[in-house]
């Protein structure tokens, strides 16, 4: 580890030397923001390039750019796919501020121009293993029940797999569902899903962009092992009042945005709610007088996004945003009632400040909470069970761009975590009993980082970074260094090769009793017993630009993970005062090859992704210490996505996925348990090593058609979607069933066991849906 650290310090020193040499020439800086001309939204990833000097930069996550060039006149090209390219002649005799409103391309064709970043930028950047989505992309694709879902769109990318049929949980390069750092406007979201994972909590109308980092993690990110999903919300239209919305099969949504002070301040509010419960309540009410009345349980979910911003001056901007998502399940009959609710709350206050044209500051304070609670009452007796996590985070990020060939980032963060673990309260109104179980734990997580992205030559560009993170809890302080490194070698403008290495620490763990991510899983801190999880990942890849329209890339990776967590056999999940005693610890490793070809321009766009991978786990206490495949180990994973603009107002798309079935456990033997007097005998299954079987291969075709039309006001479209178009019965789970037969024994009918058979259960057949979307 010391050697690695020495190498990283050396690289940073080399970078600094380059920088000092660069200072010998007279240079000035042009800096500013690039926004959408129609609604004032800041644009992320706009390329600003000087063709003569072959130097450039891109706008950061807040739409800010800073480019330092030699004194003189320069022609700068501002380009962003889906927008008109803008060329500006700039005379640099001093530092100048230049804000640009970029005009969206007018052609209908641009609706299928989906990428936020040009291929050239992908070839040029040192960042590898990143997937970027825009909402235009997600909205064109077929969706389950018509609900556009950005997480499910990410599942179509190589290296990313789902947790199962319909699930919005994601598993990145062999990582667990809890090893994804999900950020919504920089606030962590611990369970970004509704309905046990079938839908994500992010309303596509409110989301501006999504970046998924699978490896080569920038130094500013830390805290989770496998991925970073950085979701940015729209800022709100600061030019005019506008709205979007939609009516779908299961949910409706509405987004309103408007200036508060024109071109200075704006807000956006976005809400979504399901309405199945409205019908079930009506059915219940109509049936309640019937003799055999049995009410249908009540279920709905909703989410709400709020955001406002204010431009204080050319140098200062402030933003506040809030997010609320909730799932509610309830059942109430006679004296018995049960309520099960879970959801996230998050809030962000952010201040962007430009100290000088080369130094940008982002200061963020976030609050984030996830909890679930099951409440049950019978007459005077009540019972509730719940867990949760609550974070307060203060974070500062500096961007220092001393030259066109340098980008230095540094900053730090502190998070105060509070964990409510398995709070059980049960009591009676008459005081006959009163039981309280569970514990509250706290932890403080800190991190500081520095990274430097430098262009050493036209061909070679490197990014070196170092992060130090720590976690204090239970009288124990864990800390560690997380080196980050990536390099790009451009053979020419169309071909580049990249490598990266990243170490990540994870101090907060999800205690999950299932292979999937469920709302009842418990977040748990590192303690004296539970040490932080660590991952190391190396990756290498090449990118080719084929002609001007196709980008082909191939990446290989190898990832080691230490101190992975699982439950011991027979663990007490809900009545243990010290959950850590129920854990077992092991290691994991995964490796794979990801092939990806995409086309983002023209009437036909899309991509083909193929991943070959293996993911292993090994625990002393599981399967007698033998290695076993992780549940989401999938040898082959193919996604083919095609979008085609048939007519200016009519587009169609198709997505086909194929992957090796998940690894799972089936019993190989059985025994007869007679049990004690008064208890029925039963057949007990005997399981071999964990995950030693494979589900049948999974494949599915989804189709969609978006027809735009112009009503009397605004714009509208009808989205037709067909999920599982060829009605494949994909296995959701397999179970063994006892076959019985009724025979006559001594004149009495008696049921006897005659054998056993295997049954496969599927979840979704073909599901057509229609959604009406509007915009004004």
């Amino acid at each position, binding site marked *: 580890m010391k050697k690695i650290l020495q190498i990283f310090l050396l690289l940073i020193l080399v970078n600094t030397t380059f920088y000092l040499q660069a200072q010998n020439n007279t240079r000035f800086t042009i800096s500013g923001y690039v926004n959408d001309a129609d609604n004032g939204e800041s644009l992320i990833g706009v390329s600003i390039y000087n063709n003569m000097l072959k130097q450039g930069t891109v706008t950061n996550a807040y739409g800010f750019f800073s480019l330092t060039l030699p004194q003189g006149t320069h022609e700068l090209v501002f380009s962003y796919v889906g927008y008109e390219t803008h060329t500006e002649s700039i005379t640099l005799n001093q530092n100048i501020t230049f804000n640009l409103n970029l005009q969206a391309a007018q052609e209908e064709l641009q609706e299928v121009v989906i990428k936020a970043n040009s291929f050239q930028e992908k070839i040029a950047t040192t960042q590898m293993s990143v997937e970027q989505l825009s909402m235009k992309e997600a909205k064109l694709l077929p969706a389950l029940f018509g609900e556009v879902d950005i997480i499910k769109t990410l599942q179509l990318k190589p290296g990313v797999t789902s947790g199962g049929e319909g699930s919005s949980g994601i598993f990145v390069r062999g990582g667990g569902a809890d090893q994804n750092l999900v950020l919504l406007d920089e606030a962590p979201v611990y369970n970004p899903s509704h309905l046990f994972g079938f839908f994500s909590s992010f309303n596509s109308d409110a989301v501006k962009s999504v970046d998924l980092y699978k490896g080569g993690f920038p130094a500013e990110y830390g805290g989770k092992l496998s991925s970073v999903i950085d979701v940015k919300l729209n800022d709100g239209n600061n030019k005019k009042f506008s709205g979007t919305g939609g009516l779908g099969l299961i949910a409706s949504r509405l987004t309103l945005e408007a200036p508060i002070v024109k071109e200075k301040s704006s807000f956006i509010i976005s809400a979504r709610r399901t309405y199945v419960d409205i019908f079930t309540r009506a059915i219940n009410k109509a049936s309640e007088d019937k003799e055999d009345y049995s009410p249908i349980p009540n279920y709905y979910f909703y989410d709400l996004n709020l955001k406002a911003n204010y431009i204080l001056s050319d140098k200062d901007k402030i933003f506040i945003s809030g997010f609320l998502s909730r799932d509610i399940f309830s059942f109430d009959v006679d004296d018995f009632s049960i309520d099960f609710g879970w959801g996230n709350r998050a809030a962000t206050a952010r201040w962007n400040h430009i100290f000088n044209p080369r130094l940008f500051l982002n200061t963020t304070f976030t609050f984030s909470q996830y909890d679930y609670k099951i409440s049950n009452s019978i007459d005077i007796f009540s019972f509730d069970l719940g867990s949760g996590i609550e974070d307060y985070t203060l974070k500062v990020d500096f961007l220092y761009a001393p030259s066109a060939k340098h980008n230095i980032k540094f900053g730090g963060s502190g998070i105060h975590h509070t964990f409510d673990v398995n709070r059980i309260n049960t009591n009676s109104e008459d005081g006959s009993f009163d039981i309280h*179980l569970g514990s509250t734990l706290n932890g403080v997580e800190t991190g500081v980082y520095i990274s430097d992205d430098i262009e050493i030559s036209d061909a070679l560009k490197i990014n070196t970074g170092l992060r130090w993170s720590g976690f204090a809890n239970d009288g124990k302080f864990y800390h560690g260094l997380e080196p980050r490194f990536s390099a790009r070698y451009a053979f020419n403008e169309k071909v580049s090769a990249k490598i990266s290495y990243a170490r990540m620490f994870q101090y907060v763990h999800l205690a999950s009793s299932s292979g*999937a991510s469920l709302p009842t899983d418990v977040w748990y801190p590192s303690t004296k017993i539970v040490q932080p999880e660590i991952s190391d990942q190396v990756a290498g890849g090449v990118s080719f630009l084929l002609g001007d329209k196709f980008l082909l890339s191939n990446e290989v990776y190898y990832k080691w993970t230490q101190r992975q967590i699982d439950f011991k056999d027979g663990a007490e999940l809900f009545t243990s005062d010290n959950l850590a005693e129920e854990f077992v610890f092991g290691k994991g490793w995964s490796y794979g090859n990801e092939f990806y070809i995409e086309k983002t321009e023209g009437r036909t766009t899309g991509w083909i992704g193929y991943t070959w991978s293996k993911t292993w786990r090994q625990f002393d206490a599981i399967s007698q210490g033998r290695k076993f495949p992780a549940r989401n180990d999938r040898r082959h994973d193919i996604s083919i996505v095609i979008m085609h603009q048939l007519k200016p107002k009519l587009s169609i798309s198709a997505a086909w996925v194929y992957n090796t079935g998940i690894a799972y456990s089936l019993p190989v033997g*059985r025994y007869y348990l007679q049990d004690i007097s*008064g208890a029925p005998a039963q057949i007990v*299954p005997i399981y071999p090593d964990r995950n030693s079987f494979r589900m049948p291969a999974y494949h599915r075709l989804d189709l969609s058609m978006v027809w735009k039309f112009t009503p009397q006001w605004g714009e509208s479209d009808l989205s037709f979607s067909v999920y599982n178009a060829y009605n494949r019965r994909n296995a959701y789970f*397999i179970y063994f069933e006892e076959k019985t037969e009724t025979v006559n024994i001594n004149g009495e009918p008696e049921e006897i066991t005659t054998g056993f058979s295997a049954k*496969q259960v599927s979840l979704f057949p073909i599901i057509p849906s229609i959604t009406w979307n509007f915009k004004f």
Partner: protein
Amino acid sequence: MFKQAIFWSVLFMFFLSACGSLEKEITVDLPEYEKQYIVEGYLEANKPFRLLLTHSSGYFDAITESVIDDVLVNDALVTISYGETVDTLHPNGGFPLYIEDDKLFNYGSENMVPELYNTPFDLNIETADGKKMWASTQLLPAISIDSVTFRKNADSMALVLTYVSDPVNEANFYRRMAYFNNMDSLEQDFVTDDAVVGEKNQIVFGTAYNYAPNDTAINILYHITQDYYDYFRTMQSAVSSNGNPFAIPSSIISNIQGDGIGIFTSLTKTEVIKVYE
């Protein structure tokens, strides 16, 4: 017109096929399974020694006679030692089996389990093919049920509350069984430790509002060993994992050492029967 008819027919057939069942029987190729010996022995003070020795089967093995007759192992040497005594449990001539309460056993002794609460009972089994198994357990004192009460609602239906005082300063484990009116109607059956004890050091078991006037509540509480508690929970977990898409099946924690799995344990029973009046 003809084309339209074809179109709608195809569409109708397409959706008709979609309405098919989401569950179907499939063939699963299981690997060759090596059979294991299964031990089931429960000691209750003042009841005869009994033990069931069987073997496991491949999951899809054919059933030739019945689930139990196919798996009996009747040619083993089974002994239980306690203090200076070594008691040999014999097969009851193979058939008929020993019948104790409503259960069948293929090994038994004429002797009763003595009330030796501080003496270990050691089980040793040697099968005809030379496989050996052994285990040990101890008798536990009875835990009394403090009270059983009925609490009625506005419709005069009642739920049953069973109060048990948990001995302090020691870890205790219980199997709770509740029957509605007779022993054929098992209403509750689970194991618990004493983590759920309340401030009054009492454990309270409750039922639903199932009881009408003149119904009988049969409450049984077994004081059990931790071995049995671990075995029962992991066995139940294995059973319930079959058919649960979210479950990760665990291995069964058995206290049988050597070439088999199962349970050899003591049970101490307390029973209170009460009629709702």
